[in-house]
């Protein structure tokens, strides 16, 4: 097995609420190797997205530790974590999160341009062709269907060649056959590029395609992480 790319140890998240402190994640640990894939499943409010946010360094845990690509996220401030994200992480969201004012090509170019890549345009075009949108480069998000928008988002996520790709309900807003095609695409790229895939989903079929799954219930791990 390749070395660990994402490690969580005793991860907890407590938020204050009107009824006192509310623990939304209880001492959770996991360990993912490079190229692995993990599905986080559970009912609404079980803490899936909270866990994803902590693992990706978008939020800070109340206790515990996250190691992402060899970086301990704990002592890093927001800007330092942003740097880690820029170098190692990609995202796919349920609501696609494309920028309305940019067309498909420009949306995919964005992370490459942020990185100062001169070949941003060519890279983005190649990726869009790869996801089957080679003829829709100049379309804005409003002119694309939900499935097409998500394909643009996936192309954007892979553009920066991330070590870990986090996907939050990537098929949640899509009808089933479109969702099917999107998950195919995700796993193909995961395989092609050796990217580690962490996804949060309600979709049992999508979850089963991951090598490992964990189930959360009220912030606790109920189905342990096992190899398929």
């Amino acid at each position: 097995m390749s070395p660990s790319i994402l490690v969580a140890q005793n991860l907890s998240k407590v938020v204050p609420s009107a009824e006192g402190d509310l623990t939304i994640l209880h001492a959770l640990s996991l360990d993912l190797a490079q190229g692995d894939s993990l599905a986080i499943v559970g009912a609404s409010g079980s803490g899936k997205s909270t866990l994803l946010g902590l693992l990706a360094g978008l939020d800070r845990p109340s206790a515990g530790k996250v190691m992402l690509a060899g970086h301990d996220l704990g002592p890093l401030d927001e800007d330092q974590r942003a740097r880690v994200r820029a170098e190692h992480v990609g995202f796919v969201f349920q609501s696609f999160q494309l920028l309305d004012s940019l067309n498909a090509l420009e949306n995919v170019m964005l992370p490459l341009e942020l990185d100062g890549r001169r070949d941003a345009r060519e890279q983005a075009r190649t990726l869009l062709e790869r996801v089957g949108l080679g003829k829709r480069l100049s379309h804005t998000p409003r002119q694309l269907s939900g499935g097409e928008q998500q394909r643009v988002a996936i192309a954007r996520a892979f553009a920066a060649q991330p070590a870990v790709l986090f996907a939050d309900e990537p098929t949640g807003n899509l009808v089933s056959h479109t969702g099917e095609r999107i998950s195919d695409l995700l796993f193909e790229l995961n395989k092609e590029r050796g990217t580690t895939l962490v996804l949060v989903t309600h979709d049992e079929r999508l979850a089963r395609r991951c090598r490992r799954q964990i189930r959360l219930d009220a912030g606790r791990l109920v189905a342990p992480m096992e190899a398929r």
Partner: protein
Amino acid sequence: MSHMPLSRLGGLALRQLLRDVRASEVRVLFFALLVAVAASTAIGYFGARLNGAMQLRASEFLGADLVLQGSAPAREQQLDAGKALGLRHAHVVEFTSVVGGDNGIQLSSVKAADGAYPLRGQVRSAPAPYAEETPGGGPAPGEVWVEPRLLAALGLAIGDSIDVGMKTLRMSRVLTYEPDRANNFYSLTPRVMMNLADLEATGVIQPGSRVTYRDLWRGDAEALAQYRHTVEKDLAANQRLRDTRDGNQQIGGALGKAERYLNMASLVAVLLAGVAVALSASRYAARRLDASALLRCLGLSRHQALGLYCLQLAMLGLVAALAGALLGWLAQLGLFRLLHGLLPSVVPAGGIIPALAGIGTGLVALAGFALPPIAALGQVPPLRVLRRDLLPIPASSWLVYGAALLALGLIMWRLSLDLLLTFALLGGGLVAALLLGGLLLLGLRSLRQLLAGAPLTWRLGLGQLLRHPMAAAGQALAFGLILLAMALVALLRAELLDTWQAQLPKDAPNHFALNILPDDRELFIQHLHQVNAASAPLYPVTPGRLVQINEKPVQQVVSKDSAGERAVQRDLSLTWAAELPEGNVLTAGSWWQALPADNDIPGVSVEAQLASSLKLQMGDLLTFDIGGQQRQARVSSLRNVHWDSFQPNFYMIFQPGTLQGLPTTYLTSFYLAPGHDLDVVALSRAFPAVTILQVDALLDQLRSILAQVTLAVEYVLLFVLAAGLAVLFAGLQATLDERIRQGALLRALGAARPLLVKARRIEFGLLGAASGLLAAVGCELITWVLYRYAFDLQWSPHPWLLVLPLTGALLVGGAGVLGTRRALNASPLAVLREA
């Protein structure tokens, strides 16, 4: 990405901006800035150029742009300084002297002028009394031009000679008009104008003679300012500089008011700019919250994200400001072309300052009002990509808005250089906004309870406002500010015009009659009645000088070069009156009801500005020297006097019966309709001792200046209205997204089009009415302060402001329904997809 150089960030910002041009909110922001900068630039140019033109007209009343005046000749270096700056120069010497003819002598005021005089305006003369006058020229050496009353007094005719001192001069023409005579048309002695070359030969000027030396200068504003700067610091005690401001009180007053009005109009434009930019910038920021969160996810640091948006805005602002300045410049150019026939032929160019001020105004407004929402963009938590409800932590927005207000206040102050006006507008606007916004919020909240039983259209329309009462109050406030600004400018225009019209009615006195002897008084009044002249009362006048205040010599009390000092250096026209003259308003003390008791020191009513310059208090004891006799009086009241009216006005009015036994003549002013010149001739023949001065020319000049000012004021109003409307639409645009989505949803749910139109009318109509109400109340608050402290106008409530809610309802309602018709007409599906 950790070390993203500025150049890459800049390049990225530029690319993003170019792509963002597709986004409607960027266009709205650009448009708002463009309009704001164009409006303030155009007004700035218009104001500056018109002011220049009016100054030019006003400078005729001085005969120059700047006058160095003193009781001794100007020093060589003072003259050299002006000549070195390339200023044109004329030299005039004035003195009072007895001139003699074959039949007698007459005290006259003699003016010796060189060939260059006057530098502004023209002297007018006629070949014989009451003959047709021609402009231009001046007496040649060996000649004098005289006023007709000198001919009458000496029984001479044109062609005869008079002696001025030791020199005999031939009277070649009748002097009918001197441009700078307006300063002093109360003058009691007839004018004799001679060539400066003859002055020495008269031998009149001896050490100790009372002479006024005037060096007239003309040139461009910069050179004049530099000259003023050079000369001002070492003026001799007897010297002072005069420009158009103090050339003539009538003109000065009108110009001052017009300038304040123009300044206020550009302040209003700045205010509108602020509102427009704030509206569109907050929409710009709101629409970029997701994008900012995403950029943070993609690894941009807070500072980089913030920098990216700031750079984008800066680029947008710069382009919009430059384009706006160009547009504003073109607009005023077009305007002046349009007004070609109405304006003076020479209108100064205006320079680069108004354009720079316009650009600066736009950029500061952008920085001030767009920075707070943009600063929030830097604070978006990246977790927002997973949880849409996460909003940026509101940064110390009080600090940021405080800074914005400060910056705006600075611009306003810079524009007007009038702290009071700035505070009145800024502070008044702020207080009104907070107060009314709070009231509105309360009102909206209580409306919620009433809504439960209302019909669907009302619930739909109002529901939109009630869902976000803060936002609704904010919108009403923004629209209210726009309406307020427009109403304020319109209101002040009307007041100013009224004031000017009242000041110079059609039948404003066009003649002054001086030196009416007590014995002739009744007969003179009868004559005036016979020729249907509308006359002011006859005021007794006795010349006297203020010599002591509280038994201390006045020279020890007054400060140098003040109005007070000038007033105590010459004889004042002292009068007495039982009634307070029309147009005078008491500011302190009370008017007397009876004659003073036998041994009492009588009261005197003093003009308020002079009193303040002389630091007079109620009850102070004044001592006057009247024809060698000392008379005392106590200050019993202070009065405001309208110097810009053409009524006889006095600095000092005594209690009746206190100046008895002193030599007295009477003076009055009267109006005689045009075409009655022969009546004037008859009048002066019947009363040879009486001096009758025609001030038609002065009145005409003043009227034409006021007409131009009025025109300027009206056009500026037009600009403000246009800018306000544009900004109103921009503001509406900024709130439409949400409504379009909602409309489409309702359509999709099966709501009929008329229902939606009605609901929308209710919503926007109410929003507009609320804005109008805010504007009306705010307008009254601000005008109260402005009238009282900045414009010197009488304040009374303006009931017509109550049409503002209706105007607001129609304007905002109409614009709102118009702007959202896209949502009503388009297929709901398409709109939903687009949203």
